[in-house]
């Protein structure tokens, strides 16, 4: 058991989401940064798809209910019983009752807590992810709150692969790589000027961004043909252009279908980088080549 003694403003149990279910309207869901969750899992000897805690917006405190191995990736600071944790080798053997104080990084939106054995909430339709709009999955279908006791599953007998190192922090001041996109299903509905606006402008992540979608602030992107179309399948990473021309990038909890034209789709590997941007962060796009 892991006790959440003090909950951050936003934390849910997530794994890699539902691989299927779109045909019945079930979004993919799962970790916003699946690679970081996967790395955290690898560090404690779990399969990449084991459930962990996705944590955002503020500090909190965990307590180990029994001896366990735990890691936190993407945090600004971790204290173990009040002492700074070894962040170069971030796998910690905790004694029963040990207190883990976690503070997010100032430049990163989501951090992940993984424990050897994984967070063992019930599997719903094949995933342990939390789908908040539906109130199911994860821990009682809701955000975690103080006092929650999270069950931990049995550890795998063998550790898989080698140690996977957490990603290095980008060099301070280094120019950030543009987010790569592929042409979307309605690319042809946008003229040269609109496409250039997408690929040559700077956009800002809006404050009204969540696990369903990130709104972008910047120049308007206007389609040259009628905007709405009969609803059709969408996916995480799809850049939808609503009537006003302000793009929305769909995220893992986003709707499975939509009637807005999709000018482009963020490359899967880059979507997690975009997901980590905080409101106000500037972003550029370039076509994947």
């Amino acid at each position, binding site marked *: 058991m892991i006790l959440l003694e003090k909950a951050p403003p936003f934390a849910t149990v997530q794994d890699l989401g539902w691989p299927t279910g*779109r045909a019945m309207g*079930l979004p993919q869901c799962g970790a916003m940064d699946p690679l970081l969750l996967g790395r955290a899992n690898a560090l404690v000897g779990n399969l990449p798809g084991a459930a962990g805690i996705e944590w955002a917006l503020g500090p909190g405190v965990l307590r180990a209910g029994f001896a366990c191995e735990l890691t936190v990736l993407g945090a600004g600071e971790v204290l173990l019983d009040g002492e700074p944790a070894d962040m170069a080798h971030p796998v910690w053997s905790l004694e029963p009752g040990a207190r883990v104080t976690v503070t997010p990084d100032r430049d990163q939106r989501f951090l992940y807590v993984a424990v050897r054995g994984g967070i063992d909430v019930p599997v719903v339709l094949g995933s342990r992810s939390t789908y908040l709009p539906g109130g199911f999955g994860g821990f009682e279908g809701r955000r975690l709150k103080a006092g929650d006791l999270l069950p931990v599953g049995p550890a795998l007998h063998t550790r898989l692969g080698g140690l996977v190192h957490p990603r290095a922090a980008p060099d301070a001041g280094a120019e950030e790589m543009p987010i790569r996109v*592929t042409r979307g*299903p309605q690319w042809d509905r946008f003229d040269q000027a609109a496409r250039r606006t997408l690929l040559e402008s700077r956009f800002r992540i809006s404050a009204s961004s969540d696990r369903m979608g990130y709104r972008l602030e910047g120049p308007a992107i206007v389609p040259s043909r009628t905007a709405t179309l*009969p609803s059709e*399948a969408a996916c995480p990473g799809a850049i939808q252009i609503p009537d006003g021309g302000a793009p929305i990038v769909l995220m893992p909890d986003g709707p*499975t279908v939509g009637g807005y034209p999709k000018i482009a789709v963020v*490359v*899967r590997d880059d979507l997690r980088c975009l997901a980590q941007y905080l409101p106000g962060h500037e972003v550029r796009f370039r076509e994947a080549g």
Partner: protein
Amino acid sequence: MSGFGATIVPLGEQAWTVVLGETVDRMLHQRVTALAARIAAARIPGLVEIVPAYATVTVFFEGDAEEIRRKLVALSHHERSEVIPPPEAMPELHVIPVRYDGPDLAYIATETGLTRQQIIQRHSSREYLVYLLGFVPGFGYLGDLDPSLVLPRRATPRTRVPAGSVAIAGAQTAVYPLATPGGWHLIGTTTTVMFDPAREPAALLKAGDRVRFEPVA
């Protein structure tokens, strides 16, 4: 890229959308359903999921995109062939009891010039086709509505529509499976559970099913 009027466009790196048209009508939807069945019957290695919609069939996959696309081109090319494999699951008829007590009935009456009774009668006297599921789990887009009931969406969406609300918008009607924001006109409520993750299958409806609404007191 195209078969008989079919275009194949990418939806990211792991999905292709086969576009058969741009309209909402039953004839086109029959082609969508037939193509989805044909793709399913082809048992393409690496195929993850098929999502039929109004005028498109989207195929999610893992593996070689080009190989999947070639198979889809071949399958959509044979669109006009006589052999339509049966769908994976047979279409069903669902009868959904509705208490017609929605907060927008008065507004609809004003806009359409119909009485409350006429609205209820016209909404409940048709058999609807489930065109697609989406938006949230278990949300079925049903059509077509009686032309006299067709109204644009609300100018300002409600921030919260209760689960079980029966609603109309455009030529469509639907039941909200969960409490979500929504811009449709609310005409009633049902106790039928549209989505239950503990049920098999979790969603009551699937694309291609039929739905009838039955007024209850």
